[in-house]
């Protein structure tokens, strides 16, 4: 939680490094960020799944999932897709520029509960950003989990995020990584097709497994259908929801999905909670 007395006032942070994950008009840029104030750095503790309000003085603030696991080090990582006013301004920043960060907000993936289980992440496009901290966390504590399967797809190979990290994952035999793109491209020798159909090909067993899926709503709808076909139980399926947010801690009232606030009761939800909330997949 924000440590200083006024929850609206953010910490200042410096961009240590930044690089483009994808190209094109809705490109994704990743920022590696260090909080300036040492005390703030020390007190900051986030879990995979939590998000933070990243801002630029004079422009505005937006909520982004923290796409790094606490096990990776004393920095924060945000992968930002170029979309609106704040993201366009963020995309113009270079290493050394100052931004503001406040948070961490929201609940996190219950990784403690999932100890001893097999973790299945199903991501689509920028949907891999909230899943990446799970992959890193499980990798760092592989002995406590029964392995990890990663299914990740995007429209084209250029749209795949974190490409540099897949090679290292496939080296370890407890971690399997399945990649797919919508249409065949030359020089691409992995799967071709949509993520939900790849899920059926991989045909993971629901036995002692947790499935986490993030991505465009249309993909989530079909992935959930297929997971039910693979008779995954509702409580075994998790996802994160995304809504417009302004405060981040339940005051400004806009991020509600039915009676749940995405910033307080989410962004991580189990399908068991979401399935009887009609507005969840609006």
């Amino acid at each position, binding site marked *: *939680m*924000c440590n200083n*007395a*006024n*929850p*609206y*006032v*953010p910490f*200042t942070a410096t961009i240590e490094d930044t690089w483009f994950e994808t190209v094109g008009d809705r490109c994704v840029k990743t920022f590696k960020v260090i909080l*300036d104030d040492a005390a703030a750095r020390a007190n900051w503790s986030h879990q995979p799944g939590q998000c933070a309000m990243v*801002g630029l*003085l*004079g*422009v*505005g*603030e*937006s909520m982004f999932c923290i796409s790094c696991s606490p096990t990776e080090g004393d920095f924060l990582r945000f992968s930002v897709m170029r*979309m*609106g*006013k704040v*993201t366009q301004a963020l995309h113009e920043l270079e290493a050394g520029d*100052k931004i*503001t960060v406040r948070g961490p907000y929201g609940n996190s993936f219950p990784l403690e509960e999932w100890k001893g289980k097999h973790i299945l992440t199903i991501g689509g496009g920028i949907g891999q950003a909230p899943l990446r901290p799970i992959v890193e966390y499980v990798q760092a504590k592989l002995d406590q989990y029964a392995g990890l399967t990663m299914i990740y797809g995007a429209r084209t190979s250029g749209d795949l995020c974190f490409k540099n990290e897949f090679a290292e994952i496939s080296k370890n035999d407890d971690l399997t990584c399945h990649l797919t793109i919508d249409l065949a491209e030359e020089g691409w020798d992995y799967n071709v097709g949509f993520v939900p159909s790849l899920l059926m090909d991989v045909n993971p067993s629901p036995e002692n497994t947790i499935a986490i899926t993030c991505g465009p*709503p249309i993909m989530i709808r079909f992935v959930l259908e297929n997971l039910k076909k693979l008779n995954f139980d509702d409580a075994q399926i998790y996802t994160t929801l*995304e*809504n*417009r947010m*302004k*405060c981040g*801690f*339940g*005051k*400004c*009232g*806009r991020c*509600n*999905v*039915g*009676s749940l606030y995405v910033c*307080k009761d989410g962004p991580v939800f189990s399908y068991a909670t979401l399935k009887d909330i*009609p*507005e969840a997949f*609006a």
Partner: protein
Amino acid sequence: MDIFKLRKDKFADFLASLGGYKLFAPQKVGESIRFAPVTDAGKVELALANTTVPPKSIFFPQTETLYRYALGNTEMHPPAEGEAGVVLGVRPCDARAQVIVDNLFSWDVDDPYYLERRKKIAVVGLACNKPCVNCFCLSVGGDPASTEGLDLLMTELDDAYLLQPLTEKGEKLSQAVAAVAEAAETGDLDEAEKLHRQAREKINRKVETDGIPQKLPGLWDDALWQNTAASCLGCGICTFLCPTCHCFDIQDEVEGIDGRRCRMWDSCMFKEYTLHASGHNPRPTRRERTRNRINHKYNYFVQKFDVIACVGCGRCISFCPVNIDIVEILRQVKEAR
């Protein structure tokens, strides 16, 4: 705490005796009545059933600076501490509304701006003798003379006001009153009681609200929402004038190199309220927004804080340009199978 009787001709002296505080009271601002700082006691208007803009504008101003900054450096300066104040002439329903909103602004994380004002500003209520045609406070647990959320309750007799301190903040105020008022006799108390009873009988807008929070989830796809929202203009009147509405937007404003991040009232009835930067809108039409507004007040807020976020002040009925009437909606919810 003893009760005082203040002659109406001594009212100006009473205001003067509150000189130490920043005083707010209903006055004409532009063409309508709202709470504003008192500069001239003669301008205070207590006759109207209720102000157009509720007293929430004192505790939660329409536009409020969160912090200022200068472009180029990263210091952020929240505004200085506010001063002690008194807001006078608050109707019991609005005072109750403020207590309901307190729930949210102190839920898990304290909102420093709002709660500081709530601590520093005393609330002097004015019991309703003449409820307006759209008041339905009795149906949502309110009362024309309720003392919830008030530090001192005033009741208007024909030539005097009865002042009844309720909290120690109210007690402190009544010491200032003692100089200009005398102790009230039992006759006055009975008179006030009679006026309160008459006011209760005058409220003819009634609706059964128990059972509504439990019934609303089942009516998610009911035609009620489409029929109600068909005539809705999607403007912000019902939310901006609602004393329990608390939603806000945060924006940056820069002039030259000086900037500020400020928050301002926002409305769930506006399209942009939930519009994602990608263009996706989880609540694309006025049907979803109308459904969300009613569900927030009569279902979601009840699930979280166990109180209906509506005090029956009737402003959303009186000021809706197309006469969308929340009492009618609640009646239809109650009668829906």
